[in-house]
Structure formats: structure tokens, C-alpha cells
């Protein structure tokens, strides 16, 4: 798949945000803040980092991506559709009966969308899966790399730290974990619900190569991914500092936007703050011209 340059990646990130807003205003249900905050990371992953063939999702040479925090599905679905895994107009079916875009992701071989390998939604399970996949690929001396995205609230789950030990014990270096460090979870800021700090020290103590970056800087994120690939004796984790609802004024760094969709008026406001892109929207609402 052709890689986009930095300028286009930022433009794609803006388009992913517009898509998420439109999907959610149609579905009237779903998570806004986290997906909006991950637009740069998903743009970078699907249009630069991942070695994938969207027309052939099971391509044997593919890189594997797992979304452990399944509620972030809306931004994943937009990235998958924009990359060509399924038609753009399918984005309008999010959370509807018989849609492949389930409220939380399901794999393509069940009733889910192409590009998805394992279900997620119940938190804390994706890192173990990524480690298992990386071990399997290493056993066959394959070059495919494994990526997994974790929410920071999700790090409350004990299984994450079980998997962190397993990855380090087996020196799984064909794996890059990404932590969406937005300090927000459904009830409140993460430091209020369950303190995670010192987070960098925790991962280091568990035997990981830790890379910190600004998750809204595509240059920094791409550089961090490169650094993770250079590490050959440990698993790597990128702790990406992000803001929930970034680039939308009323959502910015507001944990109350974890699990709710925008209404029409809020969607109108959000879209006015995200100028249209050359990629084009997947749908145009009647009220957009007014």
C-alpha cells in the first residue's frame, strides 16, 4: 500500500475526525472522545506504518494490528474504510442491526469487519493476544510485525501486567505496544480513578523498551515506531500523550466525552472546527449547507 507523506497524514487525521463525528451523529450511540484523540495515530498506522494489503486482509506478509481497547472502534473503522478494507458508505451503519461495524469490534470471520482479527471490548485482553501472535510469527521466522493499541484506563486490568511479564520473559521484540495516554476514563481522569504513575518506570521495571511521544505529532509518532523496530532484545511500548477529543473545543481533555455521541448541534460545531479535506466526506447531511 502506498504511504502518505506527513502533510497528507495530517489531512487524513482531520478526515478521520470528521468521519468519526459523522458516524456517531448517525448512530446516536458510541464513543467520541477517545477515537477523536487518536486520529493522528490511526492515520500514521494505516497510511504509513503498517505493511498491509486492504484488498487482501489475510495477506500472509501483513503486519498485525490489535485494538485492545475495543470501544475506540469508530476511529479504527474509519481508518479501515479509508484504507480500502470496505466501502466508505458502510460507515453509516455503525452499531446498526446486521452491520459489520459492531459497537465493539468483531473479527471478519464472524460477523465483523475486514481487517479485524479478534474481538475486543472487554478490556485488558489485547496485549496477551499480541504477544501470542508475535511468538507464533517468531517461531516461523517471519518478518511481520505486531502492533497493539491499549487505552491508559485499560492498564488497570491485571491481565495487561501478566502479558507485560510474558512479553519481556520471552524477549518478544517483534511487537510494538502503544498506550493512548489521555489520562481519561469513563468515570473521571485516570489519576482520580486509579493512579498509573510512574507509568514509564512501571513498564521499564517490567522489562520493556519505553518510548514517550506526543501522540498528536505524526513526526514524533513515526520516529517512535522506528525506534521500537530498532530494539531487538525487548518488547517496546510507545506511551503516546494525547488529549481526549483533541481539536474539538468542547470535547478537548474532557473525560465526560468518553462514551457519548455528539448531537446534531454539537456535530455541526465540531465539523466547523475541522475544515473539509481533499479526501471528501463519506456522507453529506442536509443541514451542512445551512
Amino acid at each position, binding site marked *: 500500500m502506498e504511504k502518505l507523506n506527513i502533510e497528507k497524514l495530517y489531512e487524513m487525521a482531520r478526515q478521520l475526525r470528521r468521519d468519526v463525528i459523522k458516524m456517531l451523529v448517525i448512530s446516536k450511540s458510541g464513543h467520541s472522545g477517545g477515537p477523536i484523540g487518536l486520529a493522528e495515530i490511526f492515520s500514521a498506522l494505516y497510511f504509513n506504518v503498517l505493511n498491509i494489503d486492504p484488498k487482501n486482509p489475510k495477506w500472509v506478509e501483513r503486519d498485525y494490528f490489535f485494538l485492545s481497547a475495543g470501544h475506540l472502534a469508530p476511529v479504527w473503522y474509519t481508518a479501515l474504510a479509508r484504507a480500502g478494507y470496505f466501502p466508505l458508505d458502510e460507515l453509516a451503519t455503525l452499531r446498526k442491526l446486521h452491520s459489520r461495524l459492531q459497537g465493539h469490534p468483531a473479527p471478519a470471520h464472524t460477523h465483523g469487519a475486514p481487517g479485524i482479527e*479478534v*474481538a475486543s471490548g472487554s478490556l*485488558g485482553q489485547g496485549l496477551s*493476544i499480541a504477544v*501470542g501472535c508475535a511468538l*507464533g510469527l517468531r517461531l516461523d521466522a517471519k518478518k511481520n510485525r505486531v502492533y497493539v493499541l491499549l487505552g491508559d484506563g485499560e492498564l488497570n486490568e491485571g491481565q495487561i501486567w501478566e502479558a507485560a511479564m510474558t512479553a519481556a520473559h520471552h524477549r518478544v521484540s517483534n511487537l510494538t505496544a502503544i498506550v493512548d495516554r489521555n489520562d481519561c476514563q469513563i468515570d473521571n481522569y485516570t489519576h482520580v480513578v486509579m493512579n498509573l504513575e510512574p507509568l514509564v518506570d512501571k513498564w521499564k521495571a517490567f522489562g520493556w523498551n519505553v518510548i514517550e511521544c506526543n501522540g498528536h505529532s505524526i513526526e514524533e509518532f513515526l520516529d517512535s515506531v522506528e525506534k521500537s523496530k530498532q530494539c531487538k532484545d525487548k518488547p517496546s511500548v510507545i506511551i503516546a500523550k494525547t488529549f481526549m477529543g483533541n481539536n474539538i473545543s468542547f470535547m478537548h481533555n474532557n473525560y465526560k466525552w468518553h462514551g457519548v455521541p455528539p448531537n446534531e448541534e454539537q456535530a455541526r460545531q465540531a465539523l466547523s472546527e475541522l475544515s473539509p479535506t481533499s479526501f471528501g466526506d463519506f456522507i453529506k447531511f442536509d443541514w451542512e449547507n445551512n
Partner: protein
Amino acid sequence: MAKYKLKEMKATRLGFGEALVEIGHQNPNLVVIGADVTGSVRTDLFKNAFPERFFSVGIAEQDMIGTAAGLAVAGKVPVASTYGEFATGRPYDQIRQSVAYSKLNVKICASHCGITVGPDGATHQALEDIALMRVLPNMIVLSPSDYIEAKKMIKAVINYNGPAYVRFFRDNTPVFNDENAPFEIGKSIELIDGNDVTIIACGIQVWESILAAEELSTEGVSVRVINMHTIKPIDKNGIIKAAKETGAIVTAEDHQIHGGLGSAVAEVLTQNYPVPQEFVAIKDKFGESGNGIELMKYYGISKDGIVDAVKKVLRRKSTEKMELKYEK
């Protein structure tokens, strides 16, 4: 009446461990994940034979299931194994989401199931595992009746593509099956023919049922014995045939009365051909320490408990027939 000879005493878990090594030589994609206790569940045999294909996750059953799911995504055939309680109860949500709902080719093979785990007591006696696994869509559930069947079963399960749960036992138990008899997932085996009543059993209770049938035959009761090694998908036709031909059913298992083999059989009977059924199972209680044989007797799931259940179901069969005549 067919006679079954007790050939020797050997554990089903050993059959599992030995079969893994045999399959490992033929199938390079077979991998095993261990959560400690490999010597107990006999995956140590595979670990020693194929160290590069064995992955230790430590005492971390939730991670074991997730790691297995990931290995399956990468095209491997992973076997995740520990004690029955920790293989099913502890990582239940991981099995539900990452294996069953995700429909991945993961084999969860648990040893130390049932009350016969014995001295370790209730914490280690998996008595709810069949129920837990049976309610999950996409999951199949099997339990062998002896060492020989354990080997055949694990080979069939590895060849099957999809999530599977297999339940083994710790103790050395009677070996009686025919090495050359065919084994097919979902196809029950009629071990003894009979006309008056049918005992449908799984696991160790299959041998206990054979003993019960032999004892009852001396009293003139003709007992059919069916080895229901696959609890899901259950052999519906085999159950309906037995109900039609014998008119009374006893189920026997080393598991809670709710949700296990007995419930699975009852679901088929009530929807297709209702006949009286008695349940030989643990009666909604936690176990306690003791040796396996004395616990089986105490909780009423050995030969004597099965004989009593047969007599009870035969009384119901005759009175319910009379009541039916009276109503007409």
C-alpha cells in the same frame, strides 16, 4: 451382554500428554502454553520433546488464554492447559471474548477436573467447568472415559478447526476401551445394549455405569450404557433413540447437577421425546478433601449411586405409564 475387562489403571491426563507428543511429531503447528503445573497436567512431556514450541506464561491463566488466541491468529494450533478450575473459571471472560466469540482455533485442555481430584479440596475440584464451557456459542466440550479414549479424543480435537474444551482427570482410572474402536466428535458410543433403561455417562462415570449395568443384570434388569464423550455438540439422535427404545434415562457425571451432561441430555429429551430421567451428579454442593474413590461414594456418583438412580427411574417409568393409562 457385552463384557468389559479392566485392562489396567492409568490417568486420562497421561493419555493427553502422550498424545500431544505423538501429534507434535506430525503437526509442526502444534504449540502448548503452560501456566506452571506442567508436570501435573502432563504437558511436561511435550515441553521436553519440543521446547521451542512450548511457551510458559507463569501462573497467569488469563494471559494463557490470550496468548493462545494470539498464537491461533498467527496460524498455530495452541493447546492451553492447567487445572480445570483455573482453565475455565479464572479466565472465563478471556475464553468468552478472545476465543469463543472470536471463533479462534484454541484448545483448552484441563486436567484435575471433578471431585476425584480429592485431597486438594473444593478450591481445586472443578465441578462447574462443563456448564461454563457448554453455554458458550462456538465452543465444543468433550471428556474421555479412559486413557485410551483420551488419546483418540485429543487427536480428533487437534484436527477439528475451532474452539474446544477437553476435560481430563488426575487419578489413575480403569482402562477398558478398545484401542481400535472408531472415535468421532459428537457421536456417542453404545457400550452395552439393553431394553429397560439407558445410562448416559461421561468421564469416569462411564466405567462406573458399566459396573452398575453388570450388577443390575444379575437382578434381571436390561441396562443400556452409552458413553457420551462429547457433551457439546450432544448426540441428539443417540439420546432420542435410547429414550424411544428403553423409555427411561439415567445420566452420570463427576460435575454439578446444574448445567452439565445431565442438563444437556434433559434439554434434548424435553424438546423431542420426554421420558423419566434421573441425574447422578454433585447435588449443588462444593466438595471437600478426601480420596477420589471415597468422595465419589460419599457424593453418590459411583456405581452404587448409579444403581440407585436406575431403580428409581424404573419405578417412575412404571408408575408414569400406569398414570398415563388411567388418564386414558
